[in-house]
């Protein structure tokens, strides 16, 4: 067995989710090669080489990969990946974007967002917004998988000493180009990696009221998330959405404020260790998954909580 792990990064640093993907690769077994595709991404390759369990790092440094355009990256990964038994990427918007293309180019099926490795060909994955867990088996010669980061404990970032090998494969499909991006800037921890997450829903009423949650978050070193309703209403940016079709989080502590607990929201947070719900409606479904429920008006409870921490 030989596993190719696609590194997620911003050309400067390795995204920590890759360490969880490597952990999933270890469960499969065999040699683990990390592929870093980017532009001037040497530092990323060096970082990947230090990760626990990695035997080799391939660096494809080319302008065509600078912005992770799926058309270009997929061609590269399909070409490099054809010599491996498994190709793994994180189930992030980047992995979800190119991995199915890789599978189609290799004429194999793909298994999305695995949450457990049963054996080299058998995996578990949530379906129906996490209301069911399927165990699936693939007999494809090459298994293309995306990995749910929160389901695997990251390998150590230091301690390894893999060799970095440059590969000169330039794949520019020439059919798409990068125009620009608006990235959220925040000093708070990343939503998917934070130990504490405080999310607000429609009950927050507007964007200004989210300040209360930001203040609380800063006290607890937490990240701030939101329900779809809060994002749709424009209270907060889209990248804060937690749920079936947003981000999956599993922090030590998740505090849901003014969120009803629709199945689509629960799908994104119910693997959190401890869940707190603050809602004025005692019938709200969020209380069914909460370890500690507080039936209260959030406009009283949140300032009080802030004062007492």
């Amino acid at each position: 067995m030989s596993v190719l792990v696609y590194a997620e990064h911003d050309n400067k640093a390795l995204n920590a989710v890759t360490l969880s993907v490597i952990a999933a690769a270890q469960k499969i077994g065999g040699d683990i090669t990390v592929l870093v595709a980017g532009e001037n991404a040497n530092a990323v390759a060096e970082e990947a080489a230090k990760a626990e369990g990695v035997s080799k790092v391939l660096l494809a440094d080319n302008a065509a990969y600078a912005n992770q355009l799926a058309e270009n990256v997929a061609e590269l990964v399909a070409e490099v990946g054809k010599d491996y038994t498994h190709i793994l990427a994180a189930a992030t918007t980047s992995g979800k974007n190119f991995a199915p293309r890789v599978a189609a180019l290799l004429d194999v099926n793909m298994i999305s967002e695995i949450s457990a490795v049963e054996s080299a060909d058998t995996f578990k994955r949530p379906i129906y917004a996490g209301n069911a867990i399927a165990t699936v088996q693939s007999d494809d010669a090459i298994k293309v998988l995306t990995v749910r980061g929160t389901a695997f404990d990251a390998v150590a970032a230091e301690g390894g000493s893999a060799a970095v090998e440059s590969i000169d494969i330039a794949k520019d499909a020439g059919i798409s180009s990068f125009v620009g991006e608006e990235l959220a800037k925040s000093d708070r921890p990343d939503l998917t990696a934070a130990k504490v997450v405080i999310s607000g829903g429609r009950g927050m009423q507007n964007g200004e009221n989210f300040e209360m949650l930001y203040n609380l978050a800063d006290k607890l070193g937490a990240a701030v998330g939101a329900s779809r309703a809060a994002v749709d209403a424009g209270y907060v940016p889209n990248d804060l959405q937690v749920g079936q079709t947003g981000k999956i989080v599993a922090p030590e502590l998740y505090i849901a404020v003014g969120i009803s607990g629709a199945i689509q929201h629960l799908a994104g947070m119910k693997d959190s260790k401890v869940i707190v719900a603050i809602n004025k409606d005692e019938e709200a479904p969020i209380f069914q998954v909460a370890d500690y429920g507080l039936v209260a008006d959030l406009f009283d409870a949140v300032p009080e909580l802030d004062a007492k921490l």
Partner: protein
Amino acid sequence: MKVLVPIKRVVDHNVKVRVKADNSGVDLANVKMAMNPFCEIAVEEAVRLKESGAVSEIVVVTIGAKAADEQLRTALALGADRAIRVETEEDAQPLAIAKALKAVYDKESPNLVILGKQAIDGDNNQTGQMFAALAGLPQGTFASEVKVEGDKVQVTREIDGGLQTVELSLPAVVTTDLRLNEPRYASLPNIMKAKKKPLDVLSADEVGVDFTPKVKVLKVEAPAEREAGIIVGSVDELVEKLKNEAKVI
């Protein structure tokens, strides 16, 4: 310009599905079915492009059993012009669906293919990207804005860090995210009119695809239940529990 919109019949998003006692799958008997919400957004986007004059014809397509005609009719009532159903009783998987879509694409030669980003039953998020690869087309996935300009389309994408804009040469593939638009409801006169719009059925042989599932589902289980929690009486009690019982702050 012609737009192709692949849609899927799925369990209604308000239904909390239950796993079958024999762990062979989820119980869909007598459960409300509907068009996948992301496909509704795809149909709506196509209709808006048509209303803006950028698009002249909308063809909707589904791969599935006869029951899915209901969702095709809904799409026709929302403003699609024609429908195609590729017949199969199998629970077809994304690669096979993408291959069937490629066959339909070759027949229809649309300039734009708009799919949902994800079907809310299997939560695969694969079909659009796979189809794009098979057809050699560029893709703008998780779209929150689509602007057609001449022979290009600009797509703003919802990505983990925020928003990203890419430019694709047409023909191209777009997959929809939640914020792209808010789908309309079909009016009664349009529902009546939709009954007369063409709906063609193709066999699996005609598209040359074997729909037998390749990824085997060994079992389907209910997720681990969380243990029942408690209702605390005050903020003080909450803080006390978080500090001393859960030890998370």
